[in-house]
């Protein structure tokens, strides 16, 4: 039973600098980094290699002492050149200097019929040791799935509604057979449905529409319609004690490839986009790639912020930083660290060029059509204050959840309230728009993560 769901709430941030549909595949970054910090909930990462060791693509190099069966593999073959540690020797990243030609760790290969008849345990073993398991993120809490759990259903969002998000139909082109194999494998883990959720307003890619053993649903609406948390809420909501697994189509394809070809293939197509990029377009590279070469001679100026991911949920990285594990996008926008005169450009100004969800006096961006593209910088446009405005968060969260009350319950560390108000149904990304529109400039996403961590500990 496929479903069509129309969401009224939400907000689109239409940024300038969308990636042109061209793929550059001859730019090869030298180094790749696997960062334990990309995995929320990973508390005690341990490296299994030393500086100077040689690894292949797919060689396990890292695991979490709290979940020892799940291995994290090197995205490329080469030499471990740096094990980066921070305060109290916290592991921040493992850097690999890549070989010219990538060599792959060989795992078992299966034919299509073998994949179908494979037992759940055999499939799980291979997924755990090869490094594809971290693609499976569980809800509640948006942490890497526990291999011991049986999810009641599996959710795959087939579109990304974030600003400047890459076009999935484009970056997953011609991966149909791997996607199907991945679905066949995942089907072994749940008695429920595998939901693939499409953007109702976009053309449907064959990779999703032709896939078997899935339930196709359509979502119509503004961001965060593409967020898997929102989709779960409307199709198969999570209650206490239940677990749902979620994957990006990339993860499904990677799993399929592992079984069909016996390799851990971390190659991915990413978008380099944003108003400060000379030529926003797509690049073929590997997970964890250093972004340095993509940005060289490609930035309009030097005073920019480079973000791995999108502007709502991404993370600031250096110009020679590396791509996050789950990211398919690098956004570059102007840094906003200058004072502005209030009458011409501050809280007293009248403008249509500075995007606002609100309509306070002087902010006329709502008069622009939805096609208007904005150049936005990183200025906070104000300082943190106590909660004053009410009723706004509710307009950008298309779920039957009271965001303000949930956030206050988290701040008060009230476990019963958090549970009753729906902490199991949200992750940071689902309330990211609240953080964007907040008049009082709170760090909403870090409050949500704090709540999730409290629930995990409690």
């Amino acid at each position, binding site marked *: 039973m496929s479903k069509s769901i129309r969401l009224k709430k939400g907000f689109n*941030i239409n940024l300038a600098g969308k990636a042109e549909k061209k793929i550059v595949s001859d730019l090869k970054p030298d180094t790749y980094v696997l960062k334990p910090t990309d995995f929320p909930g990973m508390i005690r990462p341990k490296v299994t290699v030393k500086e100077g060791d040689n690894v292949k693509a797919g060689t396990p190099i890292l695991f979490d002492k709290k979940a020892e069966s799940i291995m994290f593999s090197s995205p490329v073959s080469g030499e471990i050149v740096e094990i980066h540690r921070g305060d109290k020797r916290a592991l921040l990243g493992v850097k690999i200097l890549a070989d010219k030609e990538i060599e792959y760790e060989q795992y078992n290969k299966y034919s299509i019929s073998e994949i179908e008849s494979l037992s759940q345990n055999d499939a799980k073993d291979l997924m755990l040791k090869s490094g594809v398991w971290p693609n499976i993120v569980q809800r509640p809490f948006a942490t890497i799935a526990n291999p011991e759990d049986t999810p009641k259903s599996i959710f795959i969002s087939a579109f990304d509604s974030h600003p400047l998000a890459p076009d999935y139909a484009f970056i997953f082109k011609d991966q149909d057979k791997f996607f199907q194999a991945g679905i066949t494998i995942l089907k072994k883990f749940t008695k429920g449905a595998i939901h693939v959720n499409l953007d109702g307003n976009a053309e449907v890619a064959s990779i999703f529409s032709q896939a078997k053993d899935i339930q196709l649903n359509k979502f119509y609406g503004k961001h965060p319609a593409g967020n898997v948390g929102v989709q779960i809420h409307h199709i198969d909501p999570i*209650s206490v004690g239940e677990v749902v697994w979620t994957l990006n189509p990339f993860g499904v394809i990677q799993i399929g490839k592992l079984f069909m070809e016996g390799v851990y293939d971390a190659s991915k197509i990413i978008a380099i986009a944003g108003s400060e990029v000379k030529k926003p377009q797509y690049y073929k590279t590997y997970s964890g790639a250093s972004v340095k070469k993509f940005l060289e001679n490609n930035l309009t100026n030097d005073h920019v*912020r480079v*973000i791995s991911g999108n*502007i*709502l949920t*991404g*993370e*600031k990285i250096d110009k020679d930083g590396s791509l996050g594990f789950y990211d398919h996008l690098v956004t570059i*926008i102007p*840094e*906003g660290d200058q*004072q*502005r*005169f*209030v*009458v*011409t*450009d*501050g*809280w*007293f100004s009248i403008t249509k060029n*500075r995007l*606002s*969800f*609100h*309509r*306070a*006096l002087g*902010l006329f*961006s709502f008069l622009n059509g939805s096609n208007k593209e904005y150049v*936005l910088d*990183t*200025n*906070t*446009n*104000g*300082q*943190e*204050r*106590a*909660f004053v*405005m*009410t*009723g706004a968060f509710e307009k950008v969260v298309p779920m*039957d*959840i*009271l965001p*303000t*009350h949930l956030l206050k319950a988290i701040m008060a560390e009230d476990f019963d309230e958090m549970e*009753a*108000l729906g902490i199991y149904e949200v992750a*940071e990304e689902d309330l990211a728009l609240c*953080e*964007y529109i*907040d*008049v009082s*400039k709170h760090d909403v*996403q*870090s409050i949500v993560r704090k709540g999730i961590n409290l629930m995990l500990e409690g």
Partner: protein
Amino acid sequence: MKFIQDFLHKVRPNFEKGGKYEKFFYIYEAHETLFFTPADTTKSKGVQVRDAIDLKRMMMTVIVAMAPCLLFGIWNVGHQHFLATGEGGEFLDKILFGAWYVLPVVVVSYGTGLSIEFTFATIRRHEVNEGFLVTGMLIPLIMPPNIPLWQVALATAFAVILAKEVFGGTGMNILNVAMTARAFLYFAYPSDISGEVWTALDGVATVEGYSGATALAIAASTQAGSVTDALATSWNPEMFTFTSMFIGTVPGSIGETSTLACLIGAALLVLTGLGSARIIFTVFIGAYLMGLIFNLVGANPFMETPAHYHWVMGGLAFGAVFMATDPVTGTHTDTGKWIYGLLIGMLTVLIRVFNPAYPEGIMLAVLLMNVFAPLIDFYIVEANKKRRLSRATV
């Protein structure tokens, strides 16, 4: 604007850590951000871009929404004076006379309140919150023109400290600060805020038969006959028609007399999304419903007052638009806002008709519902939790 920026940069080190006036950094900062937005950028994790709005712009929008009330109020203070004294003044005379009375009240209100805000910000080492920019304008608008300035200062200080700062400052308060200031005066100095205080006479002799009573006072004291007749036979027969009360050419607190000016403000608040249309609408509906109910009972002339008269008499419109919509002290849930507004409207008329000592009800109605707002929200939130729980058992 370069010279202001240069000047600010020159003196800034004195206020920063280790500087001579380190303690007063937040006062310096409040002034700096009055001219230049802070250079703060988003953190490395979380949203990288923030909405263009901030609390300063939000508060400024509310102040602009109050401007029609303030300007009309200034004119009306003069207008009432010349009506009562029969001197006959031109438009400009009225404005000048009104300004002479109103502006000092505004200055005292802001002066007192901001001094307290700065003091608390310095002691508590936090940024100066913009909340008082609105409160400081609300307080003068609900004062009678004859109010002694020291009382304005005292009431402002009382309200800011006891209704706001003891709870932790803007955003944490339970009671509407401006209404608390008004309530303080009403209970502490009743003689200065009731009776013949609504028209600034300035010591000039009045015309024959003059009475300074407001429409509500006339309605409350009507013993026999109808309230509309009593209003029509007051000292000035054109004074209390429905139209004149709607436009606001009647005696009353400085900014509350004109329903029209309040509705202009309401339109701006609703269009900008800052005032809850739900609350404004339901306060009017609640007052009308209660008026109708009293019409049915009809035990005394005040009860028989046509229900729509309640919309234009007294401060109902001002309270509905600027007091009930206070996002901090009102209900926070959308459903709660319907109930909250409706009850404020009903209570206002109830208090008007039954309170013998004080004919205006909106002040007490808003304060009372401020106290009950968390309770209303509590039940709305419980309902949300129940929906989640019931799903679990299916």
